């Protein structure tokens, strides 16, 4: 029973192949539920943008495009390092895997840091919805609506990032105790799927929140 593969095989599966495919399938199905969850927000956003196009353009114009684009590039980079991590896991290069996972976490934290900076800026400019919101002009209520969606959607995305960071931390510790190998690296690809999915969500968030207000 020293074979690590056999050790990882849960008793209700017939083969490791079946187990790995099952984990993959399960993760993808889960990601589809995530898609529908963000999807609901996207639908609501679309409806309100359709109803208040000018207000949403106005709200978007107060976004910091510099921070937004840099952050997008940062997140894409973290996806790359995560992808590299999956490759090194498959090749059984445990040390490289550890380093790449750590780098991914650091990049993820950088993203969150910039995001937080943006939140603070919005707060200081009285753009945070609720009692903090203060703006005049014909579209003020609908602009607040824009910021409600901005905060809910990017906030939910940030929560997913934080969960992802904890998942990667889990991978690092599993790697350190040596339970990952070239033969068994399913957890890495599962967490990888999650991380890339969160990246995809951001790509759309960037397109709907930062871009509409750019042209004058």
């Amino acid at each position, binding site marked *: 029973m020293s074979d690590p593969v056999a050790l990882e095989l849960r008793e209700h599966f017939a083969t490791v192949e079946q187990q790995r*495919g*099952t984990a993959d399938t399960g993760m993808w199905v889960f990601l589809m539920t995530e898609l529908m969850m963000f999807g609901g927000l996207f639908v*609501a956003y679309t409806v*309100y943008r359709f109803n208040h196009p000018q207000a949403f353009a106005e709200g978007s114009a107060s976004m910091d495009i510099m921070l937004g684009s840099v952050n997008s590039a940062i997140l894409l980079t973290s996806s790359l390092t995560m992808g590299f991590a999956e490759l090194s896991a498959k090749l059984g290069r445990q040390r490289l895997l550890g380093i790449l996972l750590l780098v991914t976490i650091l990049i993820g934290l950088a993203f969150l840091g910039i995001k937080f900076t943006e939140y603070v800026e919005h707060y200081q400019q009285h753009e945070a919805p609720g*009692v903090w919101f203060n703006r005049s002009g014909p579209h003020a*209520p*609908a602009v*607040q609506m824009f910021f409600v969606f901005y905060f809910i959607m990017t906030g939910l995305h940030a929560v997913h990032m934080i969960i992802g960071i904890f998942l990667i931390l889990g991978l690092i510790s599993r790697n350190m105790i040596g339970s990952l190998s070239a033969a068994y690296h399913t957890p890495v690809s599962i967490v990888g799927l999650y991380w890339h999915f969160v990246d995809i969500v951001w790509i759309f968030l960037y397109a709907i929140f930062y871009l509409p207000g750019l042209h004058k």
Partner: protein
Amino acid sequence: MIEAVAEKLEKNYLNEKQGLLSWLLSTDHKRIGILYTFSITCFFFLGGFFALLMRLELLSPRNWLVSAGTYNKLFTMHGIIMVWFFLIPSIPGTLGNFLIPMMVGAKDVAFPKLNLLSWYIFMLGGTVTVYALIRGGVDTGWTFYTPFSTSYSTTYVVAAAVGVFIAGFSTILTALNFVVTIHRMRAPGLTWFKLPVFIWSMYANSLVLILNTPVLAITLVMIAVERIAKVGIFDPALGGDPVLFQHMFWFYSHPAVYTMVLPGMAVISEIIPVFSRKPLFGYKAVAFSSVAIAVLGFLVWGHHMFVAGESVYSALTFSFFSYCVAVPSAIKVFNWTATMHKGSISWDTPMLYAIGFIGLFTIGGMTGLFLAALGLDVHVHDTYFVIAHFHYIMVGGTVMAFLGGVHYWWPKISGKMYPEGLARLSALIVFLGFNLTFFPQFVLGFLGMPRRYAAYPEEFQMLHVLSTAGATILGVGYVLPLCYLLWSWNHGRDAGPNPWRAPGLEWKSTSPPPTHNFEVTPVVTSKLPYDFEAMKEELELV
């Protein structure tokens, strides 16, 4: 030697491990199924208690038992508990958990720990909801319509929403588990078209839950955010649109109606062939109609909003799709009926429930046609007609199927037989009580009695009295099975592995089954599902 064999045979999932902890930490799908049975039974009787109070209140046109405010809380909590803590998890959580791995010849579901986790999440959601109830309840109706729920209600809306939100994750995880199990864990040789229709329906059901529950979750989050932070999301004064809430809610809730009845259809599709000793007529049509219901069920949600201020063209689209989704339901009814033709029909309790199901589901479905008709819906929308319609589907359909399924698989679950005579009697009581309760409500609705009225004009009283009388009978019909099933757990006679001579894989195991379901992973060699012909000798049929 003989002793060893006997000991080995006696070991089953119920007695292999003992003690409360062995249940609470079990990842065995059968034990989790029992945990679910316990929880949903509690919730069912809690929700039923609220219903009884409501029926009593409606005996008189004036508020005589409870105040209008209390009445509003009663129907809200009745709805929330019955929908999210009984109907949606009922058959999937109990029979689905118990049977899906057995029917596909697997040792367990794909993710056993996740399965246990989903029960805990369910209980957590239930606890939060019960907390909201104890603190004073909610009065928004189970539909949480804005802006009442976000700006006007002074009750514990957020707590209830959080409870439902949490329970939603349990639903998602269970559904995810089933989908992956059905895809990846089937026994060798068990191809899609050899699967029992139970599996097909549960598969369709799980797909719906996976795709719609997240939308409910996020909608409830928006409600909570709007209520707590006082920002406008659905508030029209701040540029929001309450109709958007209804869109998002019904995008979840209409398919959710199908997730309540699809498992019922799953159970009926198993009972009827076995008690008719005849393969399910039109197997492929029934199997695909489940999938069709799952898909088309997502295209019809706007028929809850014909008078709510949606565009008339949108209403037109939704009405059309509503008629489309009626077709697969009709196919199922006809196929079940045809299965009985030239069968060898027994009058055992599960079959009585199944026949009752077909009748009541037919009435429920037919009245759905009235509601899908745009011009008619304007009159009967938001009246007791709607209440009667969906209770025919959910109580007459799902609860009947659940009871039928519990009786059918009770020998497998407990290893014991229930008392047949008493069971037949209570099936009859349920059927009669149900019709007396809900049929008058169709008339009430057509007369124009609106929903959610704590008091009403006197001319409606006669029908309300009839309905309340029926509800008390129905209550008896529900308490009886609880009593005799519990009694038979210890005192019933031994059932043997296959008392019904059923062809399904689950009956190839002992009763109750061992922890790993099968001593040897079964290999399916028969070419067809429900193959009585090929198993003639094995089942001792001629």
